[in-house]
């Protein structure tokens, strides 16, 4: 049984079902996807989570994570159409800009051009990163210390960390070197792409594959309680009060979130001694999605896929003191990938760091107008800052929607809206319960490809060998 029908749960489910095992996925919501899902507003499909998928690889590179994953799921690479990114940019306003694409030599030449004194050391760092196995269990190493030991130019260090933290930073300021290596490879050395269509098409494909192997999925079925006894999980009780037994249980809902499901304090303590509040990640985001008529977008940077901007010299990645930190952000154009889909509207998504606690207080306030007013005010401020970078766009918006850390928490079940999970990762997916495993974000793999590989790996390493 699998808790959560997100990408890691679906991938794990496909692996089980493929070999004739009986498997059930319990999904709390009415649709699959978890952190990477979608919703409809006024007839438009809005994606959550997905900006671009990392880990692009050409079909002939059989060992690349993307191709290994597809083989494991038995999805022929040729049945999918991938659109690679155009060019993305790390823009430190008034200081420097670096372009990168799926051709790593572009970033190398950009560094050579704007940071010539760092070129030699940057290459030495790449050589070291290439030798590094991020999947070996080892104590935490500071990625910032590692990078700074090669690169003396502080601005360059900040610029490299900006996209990396935004794409997977679960902790404030710094990250574990293993996670840095995974992200550096998947963003810069492999690259960004999107499957043709939307996240819905990808989720439909995975669900179809799962069902073709006779896997079962129940929607609107949250888990209220995990029943455990003697170091073993026996089953779960759903929020409908139904008791379902299982031989093996994979939880994809996160470490602190799983801890909360144990009925007795003894079992919860056995799962993790750490307080659920301490386990929760502190980083969450405010995200706005804008739609424009294509004709009104002539001045837009149509050759840019993602712009990671920062207004100051130092890039600060932490829960902000204010509700939102506009000093940095991600501006993504999901239409600006190679091979135009000829959509009539152009989309833009803007993401900033946000403070969960302040948004929660506003939502819970007796004055019910406070939260929507705060959302509108911060969205307007965001528009002003982003307008300075790409040109003013407010009057051309035909539709917009914004979601906050509390929206993320509500729909993804991630405590505090922490999309990248808790800083403590269970690298091999095992827990103190003999037949309970953790997959997904809190196993330490990152992104859409990473979370699916996580589901696959947990099933391969721990369960297929035991059945």
């Amino acid at each position, binding site marked *: 049984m699998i808790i959560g029908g997100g990408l890691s749960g679906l991938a794990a489910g496909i692996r089980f079902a*493929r*070999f*004739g095992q009986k498997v059930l996925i319990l999904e709390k919501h009415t649709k699959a996807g978890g952190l990477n899902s979608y919703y409809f507003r006024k007839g438009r499909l809005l994606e959550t989570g997905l900006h671009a998928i990392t880990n692009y690889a050409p079909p002939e590179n*059989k*060992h690349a994570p993307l191709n*290994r994953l597809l*083989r*494991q799921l038995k999805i*022929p690479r040729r049945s999918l159409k991938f659109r690679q990114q155009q060019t993305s940019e790390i823009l430190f306003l008034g200081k420097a800009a670096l372009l990168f694409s799926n051709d790593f030599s572009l970033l190398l030449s950009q560094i050579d051009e704007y940071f010539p004194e760092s070129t030699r050391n940057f290459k030495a760092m790449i050589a070291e990163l290439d030798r590094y196995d991020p999947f070996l269990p080892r104590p935490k190493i500071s990625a910032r210390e590692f990078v700074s030991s090669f690169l003396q130019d502080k601005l360059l260090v900040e610029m490299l960390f900006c996209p990396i933290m935004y794409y997977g930073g679960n902790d404030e300021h710094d990250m574990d070197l293993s996670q840095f290596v995974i992200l550096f490879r998947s963003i810069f050395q492999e690259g960004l792409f999107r499957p043709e269509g939307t996240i819905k098409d990808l989720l439909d494909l995975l669900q179809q594959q799962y069902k073709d192997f006779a896997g079962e999925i129940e929607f609107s079925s949250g888990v209220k309680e995990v029943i455990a006894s003697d170091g073993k999980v026996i089953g779960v009780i759903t929020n409908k009060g139904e008791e379902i037994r299982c031989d093996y249980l994979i939880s994809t809902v996160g470490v602190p979130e799983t801890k909360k499901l144990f009925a007795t304090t003894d079992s919860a303590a056995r799962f993790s001694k750490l307080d659920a509040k301490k386990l929760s990640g502190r980083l969450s985001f405010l995200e706005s999605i804008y739609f424009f008529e294509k004709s009104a977008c002539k001045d837009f940077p149509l050759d840019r896929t993602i712009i990671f901007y920062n207004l100051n010299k130092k890039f600060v990645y932490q829960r902000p003191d204010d509700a939102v930190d506009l000093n940095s952000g991600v501006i993504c154009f999901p239409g600006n990938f190679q091979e135009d889909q000829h959509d009539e509207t152009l989309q833009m998504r803007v993401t900033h760091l946000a403070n969960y606690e302040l948004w929660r207080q506003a939502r819970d306030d007796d004055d019910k107008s406070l939260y929507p007013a705060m959302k509108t005010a911060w969205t307007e401020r965001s528009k002003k800052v982003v307008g300075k970078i790409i040109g003013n766009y407010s009057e051309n918006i035909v539709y917009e929607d914004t979601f906050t850390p509390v929206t993320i928490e509500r729909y993804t079940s991630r405590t505090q809206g922490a999309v990248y999970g808790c800083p403590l990762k269970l690298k091999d997916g095992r827990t103190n319960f003999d037949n309970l495993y953790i997959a997904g974000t809190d196993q330490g793999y990152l992104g859409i490809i990473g979370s699916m590989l996580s589901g*696959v790996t947990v099933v*391969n390493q721990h369960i*297929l*060998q035991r059945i």
Partner: protein
Amino acid sequence: MTIDEIREVILEIIRDIDDEADLDNLNSGEALRDQLDLDSMDFLDIVMELRKRYQIQIPEEDYPQLATLDSCVNYLMPRLKAA
């Protein structure tokens, strides 16, 4: 099953795992993994497919005996005789 039938079963399983695998130029005495550019995850799928199709349990310590096409046949011969 005959030796040839067992060979065909293995090749079919590999084709099923990787539809682009080059099986025509396979040297049956050399390691499958190197020739087909497969990794341990793909290798597990061969074991799992054999289990699903013929209910044979292959313990992990026996995996090295499945390294080449010839050694696969040798290993599976007594186990698939009745199949």
